[in-house]
C-alpha cells in the first residue's frame, strides 16, 4: 500500500505546485489521477519516484518511509517519454531490466512475454527512432514493466494511443492490479478513468479536492433528478429547486436533492411527462463540480 501524506512543493519564485496532497492506494487498486493541466499530478508522481524532493510531507510504502531499494522495484512511465533513440527495442528493454537487477535469463523471458503482449515482436530489432509514436509508447511501457514492478506509476500512459492500443494497455494494467500491484495513472480521458479505475483522485491547484471510489464520489455529489416535460405550462417550475432548460417544445428540469414526489406532481400537472428519473453523474460532471 502506498500512502501519500501532506505533500507540499513550492518551485522557485513562490509558485505553489502542491499544497498538502494526501491519498492512499492499497494493493491491487487501480487509481486514476485526474486534474487540470498544472494541477499537480505530475509533480506528485515525480516526488513518489524520487525525481523531485518534496518540501514537506511523506511517501509511505507498506507502512514505512519509502527507500531507494524499495523504489527500485517500482515501474515508472514519465510524462515526457525517455528512451535511447538509437538503441534497438529489445536491447533497450533488456538494459532497463538488467539495471533493475534482473539476471540475463530472467530478463530475456520477461522481455519476450512483454513484447508479445504489447505487439512489438516484429519490431524487436528496430531502433526506437524508427518506430511510430504509439509504438514508442509501448516500448516505454515495456521498460516500466520489465522487472515485474511492485507498484506502477504512469503519467498519461494512454495519451496518443489508438483505441486498440488503449485496450491492450488497459488489459495489461488490469492484469497487474489483479496480481496485487497498486497502479496509479494520470489521464485527461475521464471516460477511460471511469471505466478502468477502482478509485479516483481529483487534484486542483495543488490540493486533492476529491478522492475515493467512483461510487463514493457519486454519492457525495447527491442524487440528481431529471424530468422532461413536453408542452408544459409556462412557469410550472417556479419555486422548485434546480435548473430548468429548454429543448424545443420540452422543458428539462435537473434537481439535486429535494423532494422527488413533489417535483413529479408539479410535472404531471404541467404537461406530458416524457421521462422522470434519478441520474448518476458521470466522472466528467463530478470533475467539473470538484474543480469549479
Amino acid at each position: 500500500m502506498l500512502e501519500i501524506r501532506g505533500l507540499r512543493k513550492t518551485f522557485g519564485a513562490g509558485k505553489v505546485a502542491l499544497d498538502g496532497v494526501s491519498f492512499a492506494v492499497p494493493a491491487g487498486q487501480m487509481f486514476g489521477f485526474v486534474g487540470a493541466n498544472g494541477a499537480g499530478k505530475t509533480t506528485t508522481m515525480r516526488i513518489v519516484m524520487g525525481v523531485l524532493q518534496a518540501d514537506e510531507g511523506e511517501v509511505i510504502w507498506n507502512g514505512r518511509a519509502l527507500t531507494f531499494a524499495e523504489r527500485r522495484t517500482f515501474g515508472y512511465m514519465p510524462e515526457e517519454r525517455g528512451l535511447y533513440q538509437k538503441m534497438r527495442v529489445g536491447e533497450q528493454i533488456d538494459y532497463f531490466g538488467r539495471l533493475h537487477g534482473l539476471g540475463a535469463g530472467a530478463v530475456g523471458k520477461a522481455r519476450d512475454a512483454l513484447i508479445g503482449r504489447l505487439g512489438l515482436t516484429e519490431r524487436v530489432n528496430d531502433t526506437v527512432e524508427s518506430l511510430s509514436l504509439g509504438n514508442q509508447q509501448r516500448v516505454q511501457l515495456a521498460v516500466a514493466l520489465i522487472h515485474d514492478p511492485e507498484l506502477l506509476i504512469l503519467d498519461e500512459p494512454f495519451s496518443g494511443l489508438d483505441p486498440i492500443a488503449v485496450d491492450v494497455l488497459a488489459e495489461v494494467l488490469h492484469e497487474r492490479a489483479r496480481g496485487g500491484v497498486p497502479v496509479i495513472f494520470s489521464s485527461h480521458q475521464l471516460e477511460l478513468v471511469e471505466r478502468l479505475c477502482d478509485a479516483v483522485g481529483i487534484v486542483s491547484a495543488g490540493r486533492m479536492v476529491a478522492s475515493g471510489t467512483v461510487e463514493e464520489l457519486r454519492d457525495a455529489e447527491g442524487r440528481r433528478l431529471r424530468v422532461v416535460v413536453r408542452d408544459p405550462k409556462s412557469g410550472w417550475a417556479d419555486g422548485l429547486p434546480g435548473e430548468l432548460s429548454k429543448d424545443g417544445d420540452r422543458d428539462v428540469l435537473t434537481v439535486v436533492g429535494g423532494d422527488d414526489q413533489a417535483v413529479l406532481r408539479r410535472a404531471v400537472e404541467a404537461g406530458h411527462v416524457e421521462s422522470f428519473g434519478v441520474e448518476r453523474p458521470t466522472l466528467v460532471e463530478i470533475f467539473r463540480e470538484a474543480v469549479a
Partner: protein
Amino acid sequence: MSGLLMVAGREIRTQVRTRAFVISLLVSALLTGGIAFAPKWFDGPDEYNLGRVGGQELAIQALAPDAKITWKTYPDEGAATTAVLDGDVDVAVVDSKRVLTNGEIDDELGLLLQSANREAQIGAAGVTVTPLEMRSVGADTRYESARQGIATVVVLLLFFMIMSSVMVVAMGVVEEKGSRIVEILLISIRPWQLLGGKIFGLGVVGFINLTAVVAAGLVGAYLSGFATDFPPGMAGIVVSAVAWWILGYAFFAALAGSLASLVSRQEEVGNVLQPMMLLFLISYGVSFFASASPDHPVAEILSFVPPFSSMIMPVRVAASEVAVWEVLLSGGLMVVAVAATLMVGGRVYERAVLRTGRRLKVSEVLRTK
C-alpha cells in the same frame, strides 16, 4: 559497482557498433600510419640522373654515399643538350669541363660536382687529401629533431584523443537529461553509477581508439625505417603518453560530464563547456610550446600543475630527458586533481541532472540540496 559496469557496457556496445566509430578508427589509424610512413616518400635519399659526353665519370658517389646516382653517356653535346632540356638527365658534364644545366643548378648537386672535379684534378696531380674528422664535444644531439617530431605528435595525439572522447561524454549526459531517460535510470541506479559508468565506458572506447592510432603509427614508423631514428627510451615515451591520456581524459571527462548536466539541450553544450575548453586549450597551447622548448620555465612549472600537466608532462618526456621523480610527482598531483574533480563533479551532476529546463549555475546547484 555492477550498475556502473552495466552503464559502461552499454556505452561501449553503443559506440563500438556504430559505423562512425569503425570508420573513424580506420581512418585515423591509416592516417597515422601514413604520416609515420611519409618521410620515406617526401624525404627519401637524393636521386641524380647525370649525363656525360666524353671525359671520365666524376666520383660523386663517394662524396654522397646515400644518393642514388645514374650516369648516361651521349655521343655529342647536341644530344646531351636535348637530354637536359627534355629532363632525361638533371645535368650533363661535357669533356669534364662544362656542365650543361636547364636554368639554375641544384645547389647540392653543384657543390658535389665541383668537389668531385677538384678531387679528380688534385688526385691526377698525385696529391692525396685526408678528410676532416668530425667530433662532437657537446651533448648528444643526434636525436633532437626526432624527439621534437615525436613530441609534436604526442601533443596532437593527446589533443584530439582527449577532446573527442570528452565531447562524447558531454553529449551523452545531455542526451539522457534532455530526453528524461535519466528519470527512469535513476530509479534503479545512483547518479554516481550513471556518470561513472559513462566516463569509464567511453574511456575504454577512447583507449581502444588511442591504442589503434599509436599502434598504427609505430608500425608505419618501423615499416618506413623511420623507427631507426627513434631516441633511446621510446617505449617509455609511448607508455607515458598513454598513461597521461588516461589521467587527462578522466579529469576533463568528469568536468565535462558535470558541466553538461547543467543544460538540457545539445545546442547549449558548447556554451556550458567553455570554462573546460579554456583550460584544455591552455594545456594544448603550452604543451605545443613545450614540444619546442621543453626546458623553458613556463613549460617546466606548468608540467606539475593539473590539469595542464596532463598534456605538458608527456610532451616534456618526449622532447627532453625528465627525471623519474618529476614524472611521479606530477602524476601524483594529477591523480589527486582527478579524484577531486570526480567528487565535486559528481555532486554537481547528482543535483543538476534531474532539473530539466533552463540552464543552471554551478553555484546555485551546490548551494541547494
